[in-house]
């Protein structure tokens, strides 16, 4: 099994979720995060002072998947999340040794 982690732009979340659903993914977990990258930050004002915010809001998605599905899911995410503008984010894949579904105790592929 693999864990696919993606950092995407928040306003793309709905699109990615819908695309994943369509592609048959049955679950995912998301976190509100902040990203620092090439995109750079933005400037804010505070009573006559300017300051830069380096971290921009992003959404982090985690999807556990059968090894066989990984390529497809990565593609689905990349396609749905892409705007072509800087800051679109990353997807990465790590190997998972074991998965358990808490409710049933099912293991690994059955647990996803």
């Amino acid at each position, binding site marked *: 099994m693999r864990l696919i982690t993606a950092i995407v732009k928040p306003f793309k979340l709905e699109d990615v979720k819908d695309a994943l659903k369509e592609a048959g993914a049955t679950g995912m977990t998301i976190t509100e995060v902040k990203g620092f990258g090439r995109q750079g930050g933005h400037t*804010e*004002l*505070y*009573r*006559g*002072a*300017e*300051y*830069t915010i380096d971290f921009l809001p992003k959404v982090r998605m985690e999807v556990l998947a059968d090894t066989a599905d990984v390529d497809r899911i990565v593609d689905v995410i990349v396609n749905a999340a892409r705007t072509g503008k800087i800051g679109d984010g990353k997807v990465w894949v790590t190997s998972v040794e074991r998965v358990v579904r808490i409710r049933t105790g099912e293991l690994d592929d059955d647990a996803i």
Partner: protein
Amino acid sequence: MPLAAELPPGLELDSGNTAWVLMAAALVLFMTPGLAFFYGGMVRSKNLLGMLMQNFFAMGLLGVLWVLVAFSLAFGAFGDGGFIGNLDFVGFKDVVTSTVTLGDPDGLFLSLSIPFVLFAAYQMTFAIITPALITGSTADRLKFSAYVVFIAVWLVLVYAPVAHWVFAGGWLAERGSFDFAGGAVVHINAGAAGLALALLLGRRKGWPETPMPPHSLPLTLLGTGMLWFGWAGFNAGSALAADGIAAQALFNTFIAASAAMLGWLLVERIKDGHATTLGAASGAVAGLVAITPCAGFVGGLSPIIIGFVAGALCFLALGIKRRFKFDDSLDVVAVHLVGGLFGSIALGLFAEDAINPAIPDGMLLGGGSDLFVEQVIAAVAVLAFSLVMSLAIGKVIDLVIGLRVSDEDETVGLDLSQHAEQAYNVG
């Protein structure tokens, strides 16, 4: 001075005037929570309760001290042209429910058409918010215990005398300066104290390199709304009647805030490229501060001019702390000290006898420079007195119990370190 009870009675009690001052007292009371949120929105969330607590606690402690001693020190010996009141009204003795005349009917006096106890309660709300204004400059690092001691001593040794000088027929009033609702007594006074404490405390860890943006501008705007609303009672209530002067004061208050918002935002927009919501809030407050001494004394387009200039000026005054590198965290100096000075002195220019027969015309209305000079003297006297006294009081407290929280407490934040609480536990 004779006791109030021995003076000629006040005017007949007027239910309309009483109704308005009852309401005005409630409005001014409501300003302190408003101030709490105005400031509270600007601090980092770990210090929010510290800020709110300092303001709310002022409502507890200072109210009680006012009754026990400070009211008497401020308003006792009304009209004596002196430096401080007396002990006639200690514990609100003789603060009766009927009307009274205070002072000497042949000299400086105040003949009330409202219950004396209402006058004293109304003034109490001023005595609460004035020290609370200081919390803006000391944000994020003042020990709660030191704060408690400071405002208690300051109320008695600074606020009460200054109120006597100006509001109770003390030496500044006798000389001929005017202050409708507290440009000097409230704003210069608190602003100078804020400067003193900022100097004594030193800078917040990380200031100015690390940005410390407001944690919740909605709270600040809520506070702004509450302050603007309450200021109707602060300024128009100071007429102590529901009459034409109160009406003019109410209008002047509202429109000066409006114009000051425009003044601040215009300069901000030109200098920084955007009009910010914090700028709108700050500008409005700057205008409210500046119009306070003038509220019942000016007319025509004067309040718009005073407000607009105050907004622009206070925005520019933000640079002072950056230039001199003292950490007046939430800009008490730029808004209250500068705004209060400007308003107090502007009164010497814009005062209009036709609006309020108690005051001579200001310089721009052809009244000569006497008033202007007196206004400058009063402003400088209050500034100097408050600054020196506040430095002294603060220094003593620093030596005895320490003004500033420990490094670790500052990092953790005032909420946990001073009050064992956290502001938000959402989720």
